[in-house]
């Protein structure tokens, strides 16, 4: 009986507490830099697409909302022919960003993605690709990979010896 009255009293006291409500959209909330919001595709320092269409984001996606197709350009460089995210399915878990070996896919502090038509939630590559490097600067996957895809020649990488000369008898 006392405890009932006590709880009524304490509930009443809450009338004089500070409000927890955020004043969105008049007052924008603070979003930390690693907030998992809108998904974007970024570019290399030299301005080319970072995504190498390795499919790891799609494989990591727990709701399977990423679909892409790999293609090769004239330098044999791998890039996504199309890259589609169905945001009406996305749960913003950030696994795609975790899985990405090239920093291409990134979740940024922006959540204002509402649409009136569900079809508009389907983002293609042109809706995802930004013109900068996003959160991670200076990384270019092809500079450290062992392949020649028009970025650096074989054996020209930072951690590579020049190619073996097969006709050379001395080594």
């Amino acid at each position: 009986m006392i405890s009932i009255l006590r709880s009524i009293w304490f509930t009443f006291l809450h009338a004089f507490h500070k409000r927890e409500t955020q004043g969105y959209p008049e007052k924008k909330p603070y979003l930390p830099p690693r907030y998992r919001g809108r998904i974007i595709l970024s570019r290399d320092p030299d301005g080319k697409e970072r995504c190498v269409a390795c499919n790891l984001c799609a494989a990591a996606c727990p709701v399977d909302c990423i679909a892409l197709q790999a293609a090769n350009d004239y330098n044999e460089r791998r890039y996504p022919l199309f890259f589609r995210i169905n945001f009406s399915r996305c749960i913003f878990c950030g696994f795609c960003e975790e899985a990405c070996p090239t920093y291409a896919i990134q979740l940024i502090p922006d959540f204002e993605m509402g649409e009136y038509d569900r079809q508009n939630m389907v983002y293609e590559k042109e809706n995802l690709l930004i013109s900068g490097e996003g959160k991670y600067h200076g990384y270019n996957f092809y500079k450290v990979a062992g392949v020649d895809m028009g970025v650096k020649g074989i054996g020209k990488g930072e951690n590579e010896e020049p190619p073996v000369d097969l006709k050379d008898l001395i080594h």
Partner: protein
Amino acid sequence: MEVIMVKIQIDGTFYEVNPDKNLLHTCLALGFDIPYFCFHPALGSVGACRMCAVKKFANADDKKGRIVMSCMEPVTDGLIISTSDPDIKVFRAAVIESLMTNHPHDCPICDEGGECHLQDMTVMSGHNYRRFVFKKRTYSNQYLGPFIHHEMNRCIQCYRCVRFYRDYAGGRDLAVSGSANHVYFGRQTEGALESEFSGNLIEVCPTGVFTDKTLKEHYTRKWDMTYAPSICIQCSAGCNITVGERYGSVRRILSRYNGAVNGYFLCDRGRFGYLSTNSPERIKGIMVRDPQENIQKEISRDGYLSVINSAIIGKKIAGIGSPVASLEANFALEAMVGRENFYHGIDGEKFDLERTAIQILKNSSVHSPSLKEIERSDAVLILGEDPAISAPMIALAVRQASRNRSIRMAAKSGIPSWNDAAVRELAQKIKSPVFIATPLTTSLDDLAELRYNSPTSDIARLGSVISSIIDKIEPLSAGSDKSLNDIAQRIAGVLMDAENPVIITGLQHNDKKVLQAAANITAALHHNGKKPSISIIFPECNSLGLALMEGGSLDNLFEVILQGDVETLIILENDLYKRADKKKVDSIFKKCKNVIVLDSLLNETSKQADILLPSGTFAESTGTIVSSEGRGQRYYRVLPVNGHIKDSWKHISEMIEITGISKDLHWEHFDDIVASFTDSYPFFSKIREIIPGSEFRFFNEKIARQTIRFSGRTAMNANDSVSEPKPPGDDDSPLSFSMEGYKGVPPSDLVSYYWSPGWNSVQATNKYMDEPYGSAKGGNPGVLLFDHKT
């Protein structure tokens, strides 16, 4: 041959095992996960990579033990080993770390990524972080032709590629060069690989050095493809394949293990011949010839109904089947037009030959060998057929057969057959006898103990002389040709010495006498107490199946049409211009008012059609075909029904339904037509009894066509509509078009893809068989239609 089993102890448990195999093989067969690179069940062991270390103990009291390479360790009675000793773990981790020192940072763009044996083994051995701080060695790559992409930096020097390419498949243009840290696997100069088995490098290579260039054009990860078990339709060998599909197009073909047929391998024609299914030339809609403009135009379904009614109702119809179409499609057509109006769609000469071949297979007291049996034979006579062209995998089997003498020699010296390098070192050039009598040179010539290149008439004569010698009767006309007689004597002598000789012949050169001569030789050997077998290579994937059905030849049809009462002609997946003289074919097209063609691609015949129906290729239909061996095998569709493209038998069934020409014929599902077919041809009843029908469930589940990690389900169709469609159903097979279904090891006929926890690469195949390179779990796929005779 009875094998005396021995008892060994692995990790404290006793097992009864076959002592003929090496320890690694035995452990893998028992289900232990031991990492390995250079070992391949079909290639044997060389002990190059040092990954498969296990600890061997001298006796039960020995606690210290010593590390041995399990692939080089014979299985002996009382052997005690540990596969998980801490010392081994340290050892394996050290080995994989050193193998990885030069491996590039490529996985995201590597086509092997996700199905890479190196990735699997690295994870299995516990190597995580790179400590090597020095520079990586690099190599330049080579252009190796349109099928194989070369990326040499990824090599870990396991030597599997050259061992397969040179030692197993007899190729000469891929080799190893350099030494120490500069070992290079490639050609002397850039250029296309010459071997017809080069595609297997993709599966043999444990990492991404050799990858599929055709896949690269529309690259899809292993887990993202929808797979279906299928049968190669490029030749009559009946190799088992797996077809991978994504976004509605076929992406690649991998070999599907059939211990009796192709084993782990496939020829390049089978592996890379799939691109036509994605061709822009594909017929997609129902086309009808516009009489005014004389061109084919796509029409609506309503238009089709009226056109087909006027073309069929009350008309005299003839049907032309096809040796590349399934039994069910041919049967549907035969049932529709009536047995007396059904023609096989091959010219009279071939037709006649096939009848002869069937007589041989049916009546002969010897049986038709599987590829595995050819591999095991100790003498091969190839008579008037080049298997390297007509059925390359049979040629590969012959190549393995040629090693049997050296294996026997090694056994005498105490070298087990799996000790590959030692056996080859001992054998040098010694080979089992292979005799090749063909009009032209073949790629098997390097194996031949004796070659006889001569016209087929001479070859037929040689054959008959051999059989007379074996039967010890005076040859009819040998006296005139002494050299031929000598050759025949020598071949006959070797065949008589052999335990289980194989005679390989075929229909390649259209010579009936060659066939008969081959049959006579086998019969003669059989009379003399040998265990011979005869392999007759048929020209097309279902030639044998079609030949076992009733019906006339194309020449018969021409006569009937020229007599002039056939008004409607239905042609099933058959380009007549490739079968007969152009003038003749033109004349029958002129004669027949309505030509209905079911085909998948535009060709000369389908261009002549008045009504053209889009039939499905092997990737878009389900059916049963019969290989040269007499093995009935089923291929399953990998693409769901899409628009008008569907199985030919479904088109025919629909025609019957629309026109109402027969009330009795109605096939809703694939099982219905199989039942109807086997009722009509009791010879094929085994197909229905043995190959699982669509009602089949494994642990109450269908079998999934998609892997458990199939990605993008909720996005791949989202560009069309954000509302996701229900996965297509499949009433024709026990397979499902989604990732839902049984995920373990299904019956071998229904294996869509190979995967096992920790084994993402094709090496997971070994988990799907009784023992590595043994028979598939639950028996090899397919059903033998002819009784096995010894």
